[in-house]
């Protein structure tokens, strides 16, 4: 089983030189810690910053400089600020090369739910609906099951949908799966996890073809 950090670390292997990347709140944020040295990856924060730098020192803290998670951050050489319309212009026009999001549920067609639990939690979608509607390359970072042990990788979503047929890849504590026309396609297993365990924890269509290698970092 992967830790949250390892999920992030595995997703970081999908980064390529020159990528513009939007990282959602939670596990996705951790991906920034695993950008390979020397690789030029630019982080977009949808509140209006391209080229997000690390957290500030106490002296550098600036209340006017935060990321989409409302955390204080810094800039880097080449950083640029812009308004919310330009920010989502970047997103909707497909300029962001990779988007990493958390999810409550994903189904085997690539639909995602991550913004609302009716009658229980009303937080809102923030920028997630814009991102999933436009991004060409969306990876979901999530736990395979909820706290009650129920699968979050489904045939049909139970929660209100955020976007349709948009997720391309899912990295969970158990495995890496691509989403294809035939459903979840198992690509890599977390060390010590069996195909059977993934099958038991997945309610959506699951394709297992040939030998499944272990996740390597």
């Amino acid at each position: 089983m992967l830790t949250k950090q390892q999920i992030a670390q595995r997703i970081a292997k999908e980064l390529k030189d020159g990528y513009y990347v939007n990282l959602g709140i939670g596990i996705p944020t951790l991906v920034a810690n695993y950008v390979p040295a020397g690789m030029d990856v630019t982080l977009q924060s949808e509140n209006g910053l391209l080229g997000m730098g690390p957290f500030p020192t106490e002296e550098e803290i600036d209340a006017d400089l935060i990321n989409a998670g409302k955390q204080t951050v810094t800039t880097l050489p080449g950083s640029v600020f812009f308004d919310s319309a330009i920010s989502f212009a970047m997103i909707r026009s497909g300029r962001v090369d990779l988007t990493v999001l958390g999810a409550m549920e994903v189904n085997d067609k690539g639909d995602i739910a991550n913004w609302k639990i009716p009658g229980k939690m009303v937080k809102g979608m923030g920028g997630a609906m814009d991102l999933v509607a436009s991004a060409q390359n969306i990876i979901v970072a999530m736990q395979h099951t909820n706290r009650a042990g129920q699968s979050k990788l489904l045939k049909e979503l139970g929660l209100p949908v955020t976007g349709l047929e948009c997720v391309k890849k899912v990295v969970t504590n158990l495995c890496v799966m691509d989403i294809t026309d035939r459903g979840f396609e198992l690509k890599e297993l977390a060390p010590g996890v069996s195909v059977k365990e993934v099958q038991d924890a997945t309610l959506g269509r699951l394709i297992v073809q040939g030998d499944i290698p272990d996740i390597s970092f």
Partner: protein
Amino acid sequence: MNKVVNNAEEAIQGISDGMTLMLGGFGLCGIPENNIRALVNSGVKNLTCISNNAGVDDFGIGLMLQGKQVRKMISSYVGENAEFERQLLSGELEVELLPQGTLAERCRAAGAGIPAFYTPAGYGTEVAEGKEVREFGGKKYIMEEAFQSDFAIVKAWKGDTDGNLIFKATARNFNPLMAMAGKVTIAEVEELVQPGELDPNFIHTPSIFVNRIFQGVDYEKRIEQRTVK
């Protein structure tokens, strides 16, 4: 041009019960603190507020929620506010949640004289309910209309007495879009300067969009997530 008013109390003259207001800011970053304080003190009620977030319990728009001044919030994310959740679940407060980019673009459209546009965000979701769906180039989009609002209230870093504004860092966010969009636009600034002091090449909001301007006082600039190295 006489756009300069003395303070927030003067700036909010004319804002009355039942009106629709736009309020700039993302989280607590770049919010019009002075105007919000004045609105709270004014006791104006039954407002519809268009703002990306709803503040926190004891700051920002949260203060207006405490005073039960808000009838409806139009936002993209409201997850930092217990009083908000209480009023929502009890039915005292109405909320319309929209994708953040749609919220931004509907402000911008209002300021650009564009009554409606198409966006892919929200297609196939609750957000699309009751909205026209249309296909362009094989992809599905929904039609969104420009916001109607009575007042837009924004916070800038610097402004001149003609109404030109510049914003700082990520405190820019929705502010320039809302500044374009109000029937009346009120700007509070940290530093009010004379015309000619701002470089004409680097102004974020041209003066023509701003109706009232004043230099704010006592900015708290509260930080929601103080993260350090």
